[in-house]
């Protein structure tokens, strides 16, 4: 009793958060037969709006690649029959259900394409990915139905009408003929869209009246069920609802009744949100082999542009990507690109690609190109600054140091480009280290230079043994004169590389200044360690 006394608004506000029907899910589903209408539960789905996109022409649109007349055929009982024909073919008299031969007789130039469920699925997923920009909740409801929850997006897009306009126009530009409908329940929206009603229902009450006169054909119920229902004179949803519930369930099964209840919002209808894959992979297939590099580069560009779109909808960037160039024979040629930090812009990737593509050897002509991205990550956007004083010179700055490093690394390799810093260490060979530019190079360089030390500007990677003449070091056959020293370095005894050396500055007859040392403990031979450049 106390439950009912709680004000309605409070219940809805609390329960609506994750799934509006959370409270309803405690209902026992085991015995659906006497489906009494749940009275005490507030139908909170009024707060939700489901936008349904039905794609009746999807098999055709998924396989379309040119402008010629086309029809999709499907094998039915050993005969290829036309499933869908485009407008050009229809104008010539090609109809669904015709045999492929009949269609070809009507229109000899007709292109017949076998139906590919895989391609349809890919097209649907691509479209779902595109729709993600309008709503955080996109769901692939059926093989040709997409659902969006748009109640949360209305404010951002300035209301229902602009949002609907945007989606409708976008679908048209992408080349999809879609039937759209908006309703408070997902099934309701789907059925309305399937029936071709371009309606927008926000209210639970209106939903019932709108659904009532939908023909049974717009429900994807089994065929035999529809025919037996229409045999009884039941042709619309309204007729179904008028039937006694118990009898309907006994004759036609509980599933159908549950369906109706879900569509009307009497029962919860939770859906799974579809998530786009976080890695990008796209192929470009050609009809014949190509070896024209300019053309291949253009294909890569197109792939990169779709990659940019992919990243844009997710607000992500990628640091690595891989191009694979497939040949008819032999293994694919691969090209990997890397960026200093997560990057999204196709232009930037293309520039890196150009550098590498020049060097790429393609052993054979290419039949297909694939672009695969590495792990994507959140994009670290940078604010540009407004600088009035440097306005004239601003054009001269073409790219940042990271971009320069990226370009250099793209061409000559990761190991060959680095930055440096000093390390607090007395041993000369350990007093510095190379730093990658791709990492965040927060420099750990010592702020204070040790000025009293005499260090050469050039360092040899390894000390070089100098020949000696009666104890004096020789360089290029010439006896060296010691100018400065010794500077004794005796340190590092705690690890394997301990040193005990006397360093001197020496000069030869040609005027070269050398940094040489002599080991104190072992033999007394001389080593060259650097030049005072």
């Amino acid at each position: 009793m106390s439950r009912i006394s709680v004000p309605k608004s409070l219940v809805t506000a609390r329960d609506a958060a994750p799934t509006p029907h959370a409270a309803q899910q405690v209902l026992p589903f085991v015995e659906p037969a006497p489906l009494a209408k749940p009275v005490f539960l507030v139908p909170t789905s009024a707060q939700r709006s489901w936008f349904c996109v039905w794609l009746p022409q999807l098999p055709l649109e998924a396989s379309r690649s040119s402008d010629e007349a086309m029809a999709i055929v499907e094998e039915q009982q050993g005969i290829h029959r036309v499933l869908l024909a485009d407008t050009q073919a229809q104008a010539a008299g090609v109809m669904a259900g015709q045999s492929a031969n009949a269609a070809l007789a009507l229109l000899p130039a007709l292109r017949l394409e076998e139906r590919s469920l895989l391609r349809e699925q890919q097209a649907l997923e691509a479209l779902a990915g595109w729709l993600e920009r309008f709503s955080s909740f996109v769901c692939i409801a059926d093989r040709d139905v997409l659902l969006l929850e748009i109640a949360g997006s209305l404010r951002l897009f300035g209301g229902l009408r602009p949002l609907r306009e945007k989606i409708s126009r976008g679908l048209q530009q992408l080349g999809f003929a879609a039937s759209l409908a908006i309703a408070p329940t997902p099934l309701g929206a789907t059925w309305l869209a399937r029936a071709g009603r371009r309606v927008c229902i926000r209210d639970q009450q209106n939903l019932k009246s709108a659904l009532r006169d939908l023909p049974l054909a717009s429900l994807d119920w089994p065929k035999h069920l529809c025919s037996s229902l229409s045999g009884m004179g039941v042709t619309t949803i309204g007729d179904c609802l008028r039937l006694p519930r118990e009898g309907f369930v006994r004759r036609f099964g509980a599933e159908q009744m549950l369906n109706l209840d879900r569509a009307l919002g009497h029962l919860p209808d939770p859906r799974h949100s579809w998530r786009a894959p976080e890695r990008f992979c796209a192929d470009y297939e050609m009809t014949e082999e190509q070896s024209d590099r300019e053309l291949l580069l253009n294909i890569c560009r197109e792939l990169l542009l779709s990659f940019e779109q992919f990243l844009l909808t997710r607000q992500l960037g990628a640091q690595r990507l891989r191009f694979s160039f497939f040949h008819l024979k032999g293994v694919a040629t691969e090209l990997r690109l890397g960026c200093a930090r997560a990057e999204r812009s196709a232009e930037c990737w293309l520039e890196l690609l150009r550098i590498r593509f020049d060097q790429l050897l393609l052993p054979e002509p290419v039949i297909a190109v694939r672009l695969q991205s590495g792990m994507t990550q959140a994009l670290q956007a940078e604010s540009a600054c407004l600088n009035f004083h440097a306005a004239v010179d601003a054009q001269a700055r073409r790219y940042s140091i990271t971009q320069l490093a990226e370009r250099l690394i793209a061409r000559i390799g990761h190991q060959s480009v680095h930055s440096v810093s000093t390390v607090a260490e007395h041993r000369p060979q350990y007093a510095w280290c190379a730093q990658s530019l791709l990492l965040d190079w927060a420099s750990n360089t010592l702020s204070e230079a040790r000025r009293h030390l005499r260090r050469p500007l050039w360092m040899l990677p390894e000390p070089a043994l100098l020949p000696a003449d009666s104890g004096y070091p020789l360089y290029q056959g010439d006896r060296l004169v010691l100018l400065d020293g010794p500077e004794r370095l005796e340190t590092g005894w705690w690890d394997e590389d301990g040193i005990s050396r006397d360093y001197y500055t020496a000069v030869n007859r040609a005027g070269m200044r050398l940094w040489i040392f002599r080991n104190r403990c072992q033999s007394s031979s001389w080593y060259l360690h650097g030049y005072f450049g």
Partner: protein
Amino acid sequence: MSSSLDKLLENPRVWRGRNQVQREAALSSGYPELDRHLPGGGWPLKALTEILTEQYGIGELRLLMPALARLTAENTPVDDNEPGWIAWIAPPFQPYPPALQQCGIDLSRMLIVRPRDPSEVLWSAEQALSSGTCAAVLFWPETLDDQASRRLQLAAEKGHSWAIAFRPMLARKQPSAAALRLELHPEGTRHSSGQGTRIHILKSRGGRPVVLNNLKLSQYPA
């Protein structure tokens, strides 16, 4: 009389060296004797400088250090907010960071590039020069023909960058588009630490060839 002379001088084929006053941006080398002989009073920025030496270790880096130190400390002419980078492309040995720091160079602005292929030295240099991020680009090419030097000279102008090519003495006979060409010779008393260097300015755009004797190169800022 003077009017006919003026007419003659208007002829574009007549080149007058003295009146070439379009002074390019210059950066003081830190050595007043050298500055005096360089047009504009210092190293020509936005141009290619060639330094010819017989060997390494005779002060070829010390000659540049005061100017490079100033470049990493100052704001670049290109961007007011950030000092420029110094790119080292294919250095013959490892530039030693502690010593560079002693010269006053900001190590966080150093970019070291070691191309595997000699042909990529020039490519990297051109990229670094035209990027507009590097205040100076030091590179050690194996070869640098007339055409390549012209390209680099253009890249340096475009990117407002100072290009410095280190080349062997053999290259002095080759033509080059560099704005400034110097020869370095060590000289003088080998027993004293105050060793001098002879600098022969072979070519200087807007200046004239000259030989400077006994320039004292110091590694340490005063």
